[in-house]
């Protein structure tokens, strides 16, 4: 069994970028069949969701544009020691309100779940550790749906769950709905709300069995208010999948965590407790070296309300 769609995207990437050719080769050289099958499936779904016929070149280009953006932001971060943006209005004007850019952005970000080892490890933590805890039925929500990959897997795993998708970007919401359809899941199981979560949380108190907050909080100016408010939306028995990162510059990152303890303290202050964690550093450096050197640590946790 081959992985023709993965191969096509990898070939396009390798032709266009020496650095990404190398990075992708690295991950493929260490890949097991579980990874390859997952990667192939994600690309097939993205192709379907994009809806422009064969889109391997576009998918590869979107990924390369995303990685280029990250490199540029890293250069700024290295010099200035802070993220470029410090307010949500600028992020909205520059990124979330630009539909064409957002489409490229969510596709590129989706590919990082395959081609960035730390992101793929978080996917595995999600699939292997978080989802088994989620009840088959009940009520769920995701805030900041992005590419829709995590939401699709929730709906696949908890087959009777009904969910709400919340995002400020209509493009993200549309992509997620299309990814759900591409995963052969009944779209009627989800409802859609366009919302700036810092102004309005369109969820009932104590209603949620599951909440997904994947790489949301670092995009917010009022992160602490939001995470505190979202605690009120959870049932006592509910679980939240929460991911963020330290020292992770991106064009729309605002809230900067510099250490794991900062993240943990933040979660606790907002009324949550940490049940399980996964952390990953770049190039497997030690956590100490990562924090001292201001390098990215990717963080994922399963949290519940106190």
């Amino acid at each position, binding site marked *: 069994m081959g992985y023709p769609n993965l191969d096509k995207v990898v070939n396009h990437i390798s032709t266009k970028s*020496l650095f990404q050719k*190398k990075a992708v080769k690295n991950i493929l050289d260490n890949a097991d069949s579980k990874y390859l099958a997952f990667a192939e499936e994600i690309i097939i779904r993205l192709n379907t969701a994009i809806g422009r016929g064969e889109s391997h070149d576009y998918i590869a280009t979107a990924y390369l544009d995303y*990685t280029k953006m990250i*490199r*540029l932001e*890293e*250069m*700024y971060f*290295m010099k200035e020691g802070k993220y470029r943006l410090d307010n949500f209005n600028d992020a909205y004007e520059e990124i979330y309100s630009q539909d064409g850019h957002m489409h490229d952005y969510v596709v590129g970000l989706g590919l990082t779940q395959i081609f960035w080892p730390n992101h793929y490890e978080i996917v595995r933590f999600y699939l292997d550790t978080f989802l088994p805890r989620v009840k088959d039925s009940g009520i769920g929500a995701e805030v900041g749906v992005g590419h829709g990959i995590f939401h699709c897997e929730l709906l696949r795993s908890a087959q009777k769950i009904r969910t709400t998708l919340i995002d400020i970007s209509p493009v993200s919401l549309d992509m997620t709905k299309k990814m759900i359809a591409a995963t052969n899941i009944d779209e009627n199981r989800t409802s859609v709300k366009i919302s700036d979560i810092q102004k309005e949380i369109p969820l009932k108190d104590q209603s949620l069995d599951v909440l997904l907050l994947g790489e949301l909080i670092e995009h917010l100016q009022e992160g602490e208010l939001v995470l505190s408010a979202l605690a009120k939306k959870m049932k006592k028995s509910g679980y939240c999948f929460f991911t963020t990162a330290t020292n992770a510059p991106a064009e729309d990152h605002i809230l900067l965590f510099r250490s794991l303890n900062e993240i943990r303290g933040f979660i606790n202050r907002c009324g949550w407790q940490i049940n399980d964690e996964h952390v990953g550093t*770049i190039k497997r450096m030690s956590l100490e070296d990562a924090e001292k050197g201001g390098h990215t640590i990717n963080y994922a946790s399963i949290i519940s309300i106190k």
Partner: protein
Amino acid sequence: MEGIKQRCAEIMAKVFKIETSQVNDETSPDSITQWDSLSHVQMLSELEKSFSVKINPEEGINLETFKMICDWVEDNVKEG
């Protein structure tokens, strides 16, 4: 130019933890395992410090061979 080449080679040797003798015009991420996108950003930072120059990030991320780096430095740095 030879002075520039020597300094650039020394910077690459420091960042990528290799010998300067491993560096030539064709040196690129293909030939140096340690030269990846993260260490590339670190190398650009070192070039800026060493030559007291600001590298436009959009240009910097496209400098993918030793020769391209040296040519850029020669074009953009006034040697005293």
